[in-house]
């Protein structure tokens, strides 16, 4: 996982509640066995018309947002299926930060496992950011978002922050606790499936 750096970009305003992972990556694209290359499938059924030409009314097809790295959206983003392909698609497309008033649990956790920063802000601030036309800066180290006119603090738990900033391999981290796992296994009575 890459280390998370400061991100400065215009924001893509995606004013929609309950965006489910079936919309983020439709199921016809879940058959790949790699993690790369999912960006072209992001929001596929919304981004493209049935003739596979871009749907000009969909926000991501507005040239203004072509290089945006920050997606602002509404409540319960990422609900539904556990597919991590949703996170891989958002990242591969170019997003590094997603801001919403709330996220679905599994999606939220998947973001941090891949270095995608998901920020929860209250609805009033999200409404304001949805309208912002200029670039904003997301500074994870100091837990602030800077706009032209203000500085907005955000909360994140220390564990997630550390992992993101250092690009840590979580498995390597856990394997440092081998002795604890072994100790647990010695007293565990769970039956084998062999």
């Amino acid at each position: 996982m890459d280390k998370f750096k400061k991100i400065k970009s215009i924001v893509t305003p995606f004013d929609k509640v309950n965006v489910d992972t079936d919309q983020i990556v439709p199921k016809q694209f879940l058959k790949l066995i790699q993690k790369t290359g999912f960006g072209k499938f992001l929001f596929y059924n919304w981004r493209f018309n049935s003739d596979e030409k871009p749907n000009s009314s969909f926000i991501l097809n507005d040239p203004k947002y072509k290089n945006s790295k920050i997606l602002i959206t509404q409540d319960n983003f990422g609900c539904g299926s556990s597919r991590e392909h949703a996170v891989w698609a958002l990242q591969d497309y170019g997003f590094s930060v997603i801001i919403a008033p709330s996220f679905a649990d599994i999606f939220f956790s998947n973001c941090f496992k891949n270095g995608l920063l998901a920020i929860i802000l209250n609805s009033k601030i999200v409404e304001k950011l949805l309208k912002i036309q200029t670039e904003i800066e997301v500074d994870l180290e100091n837990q602030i978002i800077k706009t032209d006119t203000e500085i907005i603090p955000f909360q994140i738990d220390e564990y997630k922050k550390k992992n993101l900033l250092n690009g840590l391999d979580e498995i390597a981290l856990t394997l440092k606790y081998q002795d604890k796992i072994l100790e647990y296994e010695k007293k565990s009575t769970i039956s084998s499936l062999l």
Partner: protein
Amino acid sequence: MSKTLFEKIWDSHLVLEEENGPSLLYIDRHLIHEVTSPQAFEGLRLNNRKVRRPDLTIATEDHNVPTSDRSLPIVDQVSSIQIKTLEKNCKNFGIQLFGINNPNQGIVHVIGPQLGITLPGSTIVCGDSHTSTQGAFGALAFGIGTSEVEHVLATQTIWMEKFKPFEIRVEGKRKNPFAVTAKDIILSIIKRIGTAGGAGTVIEYRGETISELSMEQRMTICNMSIEAGARAGLIAPDEKTFEYLRGKKYTPKNYEELVDEWRENLKTDSNAKFDKSFTLDAKNLAPQVSWGTNPAMVSDVTEKIPFPEEFAKDLSQQKGVEKALQYMDLKPGIPITDIYIDRVFIGSCTNARLEDLIAASKVVKGKKVSSKVRAMVVPGSQIVKKQAEDLGIDKIFIDANFEWRESGCSMCLGMNPDILGPGERCASTSNRNFEGRQGVGGRTHLVSPVMAAAAAIKGHFVDIREMDLN
């Protein structure tokens, strides 16, 4: 200290508890399938890591397998690669696989309990959100992403923030339990608490109605906890639970000893505190039908399609309803029973167990599917299929012009050839009515198996309570 059932299971699986951060939780059972595992195995390979406990891990092929003749090769090349990749990974890492031609193959959440892999008081994960199904046995069972699948394979543990316990009581005797099913109870709960109502929580379902439900019906309830935003659903085990798991393939040798222990310990203490509580009165509940594009957009079958203005309290919700009705091509004000359908799907981890098929067959028996409808039954597993065939249920469906197919996830998510065409409208016993879920442009109405069967016969939704049954 008094604890909820969830807290008891959580505490007994702690490997490490950090002051301000997630805890490291031990995982007793890890179920894997072809769609969310390839990248996890690839990660292990790149880092030269092994599977820590292949003896606690089981794999099956369910998401993208065809449900047609299994003696034929898989036509979809990309699906075929995914299947072959799982087979290769299981072989290389020493994991047991119930592959496409194995008599134990089936939807991962159906085979877990059927084979006695699922045990009360255990922790169970799978790279699939509907892992919550297995909470019906008093297990802490939840869906995880692919990175977490890799983490569990490598360490048999997972880092988790502690969930909050949420109590949902279902009380009251249903007047007609054949017509008003577990599916109607859970749809009705989601309608009331919303698709994010359970966010950050594990729901424990309690109350007299829950106790009355069979194990298979309890699985239907726990299955859709995720549609209410909860990570898991849980029901304290009782004699029905213990009986269900007796004598299964993987039932532990010292089972009766374990049962004594579970009977004693696996329940919420009387003074335990929940973070949230909600009660549903099931007494006057009607059969439910979804009309929108998320599982909270649900009405009684006796109602009419709502007007978006009815949701004016919340502007974003009103917009959502407008957009949903447009996608579903439904006009506000028309009765639900005036909605005509093109397809019927009886299947999925929500409603494709033996009892579901028996109930639906009672509606279908001696009748024919409407000439305008294509209807299919996809049993949840090969075991379910065989049990049903032994009872002659397959014949009832086939005589009525239903397709009787092989087991798998099938049209619940349409990763295999079973999909809706653009604009097709389906009465489905599955769990998600998201846009395009069952096929690009397809329109899904979530219902119970008996309601789906009735719709297949009549060609439109009917109140099953008013239908003549033999």
